[in-house]
């Protein structure tokens, strides 16, 4: 009998990609794609769509009747506005997860649970270590997506204790970018100017969408060890560097005004407050555990992933050719001036 996989958050970009990839695997017999929203493309044959909220009783009926053996929980969202406000976002993220886990508890054939979490659980402050490893104690983010993600991780961990026969893998993913990703951070880079916090240049890590799909597919189908793993592209990119690669102009905002501007900008990019702190202090997570225990090596480094995103999605204000030409022109001018001086000025 083939694998029967339940995917939550299936209509969003990562979910869509994962569902399509799963449907192509011969060993997968059935994919149940759970999401309230209508998916953009028609779904392959193997995929059964379940257009319900995680809190719906239809979920448990499907899980039991389909004999789901793997649950991939991708349904934790970072976008308060899209979710209909912060309260509603929390409701979906935390209570949705509780409901899903209650369902999973009553799924006798379930053997594996994969949670797509985030490095946002580490928060972002000035007193952070430069590089987070999975086991480091971290200050709990007090609000927003990070807080939800921590609560979700806690519930998943308590589920692990109650169902020791289920292998639980938590993937803490760095910020995702790529040609098809749409999240608050990609929308931020699509703004005409990128507001930054004056005098701060945080280190960021990116994960290419191909690598996101790959690591999820691997933990769903491959031999997955229990545990929590950071997943991010190699290396780091500074925010200033990212803005320049994106070909945008930075707009430094003095710290006291940051919250006002964030509120204004938040309307278009759907930022939650802790993401603003992320753009002030940055965050870097060590990926050696994923490399060693999960055997996952991202194909794209943080820089390559971001360059790919910038090349496919952004219109640059300043291009390489312009800079190269300016450099050449300025140097030519200087050289000519120097030559003139050497000729005209007697030694």
């Amino acid at each position, binding site marked *: 009998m083939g694998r029967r996989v339940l995917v939550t958050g299936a209509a969003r970009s990562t979910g869509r990609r994962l569902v399509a990839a799963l449907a192509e695997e011969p060993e997968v017999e059935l994919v149940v794609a759970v999401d309230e929203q209508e998916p953009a493309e028609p779904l392959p044959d193997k995929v059964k769509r379940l257009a319900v909220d995680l809190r719906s009783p239809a979920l448990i009926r499907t899980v039991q009747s389909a004999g789901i053996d793997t649950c991939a929980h991708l349904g934790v969202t970072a976008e308060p506005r899209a979710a209909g406000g912060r309260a509603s976002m929390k409701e979906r993220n935390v209570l949705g997860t509780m409901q899903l886990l209650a369902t999973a508890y009553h799924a006798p054939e379930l053997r594996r649970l994969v949670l797509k979490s985030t490095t946002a659980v580490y928060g972002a402050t*000035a*007193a*952070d*270590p*430069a*590089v987070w*490893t999975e086991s*480091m104690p971290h200050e709990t983010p007090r609000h927003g997506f990070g807080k939800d993600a921590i609560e979700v991780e806690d519930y998943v961990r308590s589920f692990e204790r109650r169902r020791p026969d289920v292998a639980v893998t938590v993937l803490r993913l760095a910020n995702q970018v790529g040609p098809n990703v749409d999240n608050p951070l990609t929308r931020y880079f699509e703004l005409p100017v990128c507001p930054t*916090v*004056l*005098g*701060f*240049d945080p*280190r960021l890590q990116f994960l290419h969408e191909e690598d996101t799909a790959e690591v999820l597919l691997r933990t769903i189908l491959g031999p997955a060890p229990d545990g929590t793993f950071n997943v991010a592209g*190699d*290396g*780091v990119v*500074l925010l*200033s*560097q*990212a*803005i*320049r*690669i994106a070909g945008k102009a930075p707009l430094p905002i*003095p*710290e006291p005004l940051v919250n006002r501007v964030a509120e204004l900008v938040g309307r278009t990019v759907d930022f939650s407050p802790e993401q603003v702190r992320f753009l002030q*202090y*940055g965050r*870097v997570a060590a990926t*050696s555990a994923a490399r060693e225990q999960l055997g996952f*090596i*991202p*194909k*794209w*480094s943080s*820089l*390559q992933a971001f360059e*790919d995103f910038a*090349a*496919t999605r952004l219109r640059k204000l*300043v291009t*390489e050719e312009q*800079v*190269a030409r*300016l*450099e050449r022109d*300025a*140097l030519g001018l*200087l*050289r000519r001036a*120097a*030559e003139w*001086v*050497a*000729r005209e000025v007697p*030694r």
Partner: protein
Amino acid sequence: MTPPRERCQARTRKGDRCRNPAGPDGLCALHRRQLKEVAAADSAKPTVRRGAKRGAPEPHRVVPSTPEPHRAIPDAPEPQPVIPGPQSPGTAEPQSVIPGPPIREGSPTAEEEAPVVHTSPDETPRDEPDLGPLEPVLAWAEEALEFLGRRVLGEYQVDEFGHDPDLVEHVLAPLLRPLYRHWWRVETRGLEHVPSTGPALVVGNHAGTLPFDALMVALALLDEHPAHRSLRMLAADLAFDLPVVAHLARKSGNTLACAEDATRLLEAGELVGVWPEGYKGLGKPYRERYQLQRFGRGGFVEIALRTGAPIVPVAVVGSEEIYPMLANLRRLARLLGFPYFPVTPTFPALGPLGAIPLPSKWLIEFCPPIDTASLGPEAAMDPMTLFDLTDQVRDTIQQTVHRNLLARRSVFG
């Protein structure tokens, strides 16, 4: 783990090795771009090729290197066959070729990044007048322009701690160098005690209100040590919370003073600098000059023992006199969130002018390293060993400071 930083394989106009960090294809962003340009020019006019003329912009030559296929793609193509370039006159090294850069599947730049032969840019040869003393100015302007171009396009790399060697080399170090050479006339001794490769923990005395002593020790190691080592210093978290300072602190290679960061840096083979007196040393009054304060709780010794890194004590003389602190306005400091608020003969009385440090004569002496590897990592569990080693390091620095103070002719000598 920080991957060892690869340097760009190309050579600059002056024939030096390019010092920029290399990308996965063994080239820095600047040279990658230049090669692309040359390739584009070549495809437009493939026949015109000239050898380099004296004074004419000589092409950046790329030394042949073992091509390193991009790790992440198992089926990365082997480097393409080499198209021989023209032999440039008077050059012993072959005009060479770039190893095949990684071609990513679905990458938009796959075609553009095809291997190219590097030839001279076809420019009409001109009668180059002898520019005489202007030549170095022009070379400097060229380097500055290249640097600006890299910054505008974001073509530089930082390590996971945010260390930006390009910025340090072109902006931060040149700003500090006049202070080092002319203002404080720093004299450095005992550089042979700092290993050229591998990890070591440099431990020093801290004084002078602002941490200029740390910056001068770092500059001494960067400029005067034969291996030009970057000192990765551990700084207080205040440094990462102040605008501008936060940004520069990480870029110049510093990180937060916590065990995790220090261990990570030492395990990556870096040279780590720590000032265990912290604010107690920096913010002590002038009358207590050159009396070392308590050395924290000796956490640095524990880390050195765990990682087996040798401890190199460093004694700085001269830093105490740059801002002689007569009083500390504690209440104002608390109000502003600073650890102390200094009153010196000139600050705050003369306003911003009071922030100019006094030109004392400095002497930095690195002492013989204290081996920790022979004690083994288990020794880190024994508090008595930790106390003893901490005292040993502190005494070494204190004695060296006293000796050098006695040898000094005058404060401003």
